[in-house]
């Protein structure tokens, strides 16, 4: 049975879609079967970031409404054979995304794939709550600034109350992915410190992705950054985050700083 991950944030534009594609491609490069699912009905983006926008015939809503079979809607990546996309509908009303339909599709995907990664829309409305509903674990995407952190905190509250896992009395596994981290702004003190974000949200960190032109370049050529330029700084950070998602334990480094964050904390204690 595959694992279902929701990539969520509350606040818009923080890097959910970028991260879904990058983590999906990173996991698929480990030869695991991955599907990325776009829940952003009406504002779909994941197809663009994956470079599959011209190959979309059927979408998630078609499958839910019984107008297409799941196998017809899944699009296989041209570069990685274990990577698939289930696109969102750009034209249909998001009310067509029904709880029963979503449950059916996710159950079916879990049977076939090792990883089902759901790209949540922004906000806390039904699109976002449906995207998280069947998740086994959550990647909470946050930028190091106050409004993003507060929205993430709100989303964590929903993850702990509105999901199937929470309703069954189980604990949702949550991971913090800090994105668009700008080392220069951090140095000037224009951004929240990593420690402060961790203290406020108090969930484990799986990666810090630097702000980088490589992300824009990758999306312009329609490739997840972990496929477009595997040696770039954001790609390497996403590869490490994917390994942590898969259960590996690796030290985390803050972009622009030599030592790992834990090394830094220990150094200060010793001083």
């Amino acid at each position, binding site marked *: 049975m595959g694992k279902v991950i929701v990539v969520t944030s509350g606040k818009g534009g923080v890097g959910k879609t970028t991260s879904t594609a990058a983590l999906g491609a990173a996991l698929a490069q480990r030869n695991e079967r991955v599907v990325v699912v776009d829940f952003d009905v009406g504002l779909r983006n994941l197809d663009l970031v994956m470079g599959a926008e011209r190959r979309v015939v059927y979408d998630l809503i078609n499958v839910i409404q019984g107008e297409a079979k799941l196998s017809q809607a899944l699009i296989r990546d041209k570069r990685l054979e274990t990577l698939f996309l289930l696109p969102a509908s750009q034209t249909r009303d998001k009310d067509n995304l029904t709880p029963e339909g979503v449950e059916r599709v996710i159950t079916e995907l879990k049977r076939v794939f090792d990883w089902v990664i759901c790209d949540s829309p922004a906000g*806390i409305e039904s699109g976002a709550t449906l995207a998280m509903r069947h998740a086994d674990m959550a990647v909470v995407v946050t930028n190091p600034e106050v409004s993003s952190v*507060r*929205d993430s*905190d*709100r989303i*964590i*509250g*929903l993850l*702990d109350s509105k999901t199937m896992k929470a309703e069954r009395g189980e604990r949702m596994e949550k991971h913090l992915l800090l994105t668009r981290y700008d080392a220069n702004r951090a140095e000037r003190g224009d951004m929240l410190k990593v420690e402060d974000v961790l*203290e*406020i949200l*108090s969930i484990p960190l799986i990666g810090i992705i630097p702000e980088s032109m490589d992300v824009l370049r990758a999306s312009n050529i329609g490739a997840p950054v972990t496929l477009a330029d595997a040696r770039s700084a954001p790609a390497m950070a996403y590869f490490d985050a994917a390994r942590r998602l898969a259960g590996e334990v690796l030290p985390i480094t803050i972009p622009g700083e030599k030592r790992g964050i834990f090394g830094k904390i220990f150094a200060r204690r010793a001083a």
Partner: protein
Amino acid sequence: MTKMLTDARAIRIKGRSFLAVVLAPDLPFDDWLVRLDDLAARSAGFFLGRPVVLDVTDLPIDRAQLKELIAELAGRSVNIMGIEGGRPSILGPGMPPALKGGRPVSDEAVAKEPIIELHNSEPKPSVPEMRPTLQSIVIRDPVRSGQSVIFPEGDVTIIGSVASGAEIIAGGSIHIYGTLRGRAMAGSLGNASARIFCRKLEAELLAIDGIYKMADDMAPGLRGHSVQLWLEGDSIMAEKLI
């Protein structure tokens, strides 16, 4: 604006229950409305979507003045769900219903019965109420933005932080073993001896027995420290714990 903050008379709001907030205006209304606006400006959205009960006990006002006050409040999107302590002679059609919050609505001149009894249509036998023993709850997780912990029965202890945009409302005292970034309202049913304790104070709003303090009103020296807060008269007092 900041002059209002030092006004000796606070805006008195009582968290009567998690259903309603009780506003107790005083005269002259113009001054009171200025202070209310100031409070509302500093606690964006505090009244939004919250039912509000207007407590006019002992106010020497007539029906026209009350009507005008209700209109002023409606203009601020404060919707009054009921009026408490109003003599029947000042209430009338087109006004929110009279509520009986513990005390009987009485008016020597007119009828002894309230116009509408929201709680119960049966007259309640006036048996002295047994005070239940004070209870307490312990929350072992951080309280996240958007979450409310409401416990009118007694004390609330949080092992973790209270996020910006989260709120704790307790009938008794509030103990937070973490950072308080959101709102804490202790003694919400009218308990002036309730206290608030937190390991690190970064609160947006603090209240004890209906007396409120916004972030801007707090002495800057307290921010970031372990603090306890209590009430002396109409003032919230604070002291560092360590």
